[in-house]
């Protein structure tokens, strides 16, 4: 079962929902085979040793199993949701810090304004828009944005890695984010089908 492959119409999101609904170990096996090697690589690129990266990867995937019922395919793609779990695990286990996050059930939490149905942006549209927007960046701009996602990739670490002056990295990132901001404004892409 675990050696099976993903059905032609099955998405990663479907598999996560199957894990949540029926504790489907075969579905989890498929998710594991795709995502675990990527999570490990993501952790190692941040400078984590292979042994620790392997441990944290397994813990991340165990958390994916445990929290699968919290996964909402309307709110995030599978890869984004799993990224957030791996990121939080990295902060907790490797940096040994807490990650403060807002609590949507807190009475102080300001709810998001209701969006008219024709303006609503699905998680899938969001993911497509983000992919499209990243594609619109120059290779150099995309590189500084993506490098920001690896552990301890502060601006000065990125500068060192790319052998560039710090000011160049900062201005490149600023320009990239300005461009992304324009491309990702929901009022701009929200209407597209």
């Amino acid at each position, binding site marked *: 079962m*675990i050696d099976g492959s993903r059905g032609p119409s099955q998405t990663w999101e479907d598999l996560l929902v199957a894990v949540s609904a029926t504790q489907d170990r075969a579905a989890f096996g498929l998710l*594991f085979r795709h*995502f*675990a*090697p*990527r999570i*490990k*690589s*993501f952790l190692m690129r941040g400078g984590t040793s*292979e042994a620790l990266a*392997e441990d944290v990867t*397994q*813990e991340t995937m*165990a958390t994916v*199993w*445990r929290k699968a019922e919290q996964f909402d395919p309307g709110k*995030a*793609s599978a*890869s*984004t*949701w*799993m*990224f*957030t779990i*791996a*990121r939080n695990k*990295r902060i907790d286990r490797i940096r040994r*810090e*807490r*990650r*403060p*996050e*807002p*609590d949507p059930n*807190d*009475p*102080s*939490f*300001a*709810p*998001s*304004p209701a969006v008219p149905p024709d303006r609503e942006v699905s998680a899938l549209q*969001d993911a497509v828009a*983000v992919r499209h927007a*990243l594609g619109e960046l120059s290779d150099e701009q995309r590189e500084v*944005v*993506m490098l*920001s*996602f*690896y*552990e*301890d*990739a502060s601006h000065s670490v990125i500068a060192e890695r790319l052998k560039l002056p710090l000011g160049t990295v900062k201005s490149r*990132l*600023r320009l990239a*984010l*300005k461009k992304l*901001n324009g491309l*990702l404004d*929901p009022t701009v892409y929200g209407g597209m089908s």
Partner: protein
Amino acid sequence: MTIRHHLTAEILLSYAAGNLAEGWSLAVATHLALCPDCRAREVQFSAIGGEALEDAVPAELSDGALAACFALIDLDEVDLNGEAQQPLPPVIAGTPTLPEPLRGYVGGDADSVRWSSVGGGIRQCLIKVSGEAKARLLYIPAGDKVPQHGHRGLELTLVLSGSFADGAMQFHRGDIEVADEQVNHTPTAGPGEPCICLAVTDAPIVFKSLLPRLVQRFVKI
């Protein structure tokens, strides 16, 4: 409530990437609790993380990694079944002044803060966070000025109650001021009510002798 002063894209990206020290993250997360606009932008930046994960060149896992993961899962389930139910947090009437996650860090709402005076009517309460950023709550009496100060690095100031003005700019509940080292400012609490805000700064310069450190601890805001 309309938020007028938001986080910069750079800070939101670093928060989404998980690269901020805990103190900065506390200010960001507390602002996000009050600001749906920045929350929407943070969701998009996290989606870039999803892309980064998809793009990662797969690393080789050890043999039996999946079986080891299932073993961890089965162990978890035994633990969870044996675990006592977490006590529910106390029910709070109305809207707390301090949103989560800040309220949890402080250990209660604004009325339970253990303030200490830093002189001139201004009070502070240091918040325990790890990492290089320092977080504190500040209480500034209505109309009072925070002594002029510059900083070595970044300073984030999030208003929770009352308001303050910095030059021509007004900051109300939920507004966050992002000030870098070039800013030399004198924030002034608005009239009528005291201003309570969360201020996060880079750790102050560490002096080698004890005395200036002690002095600095009380003087530096």
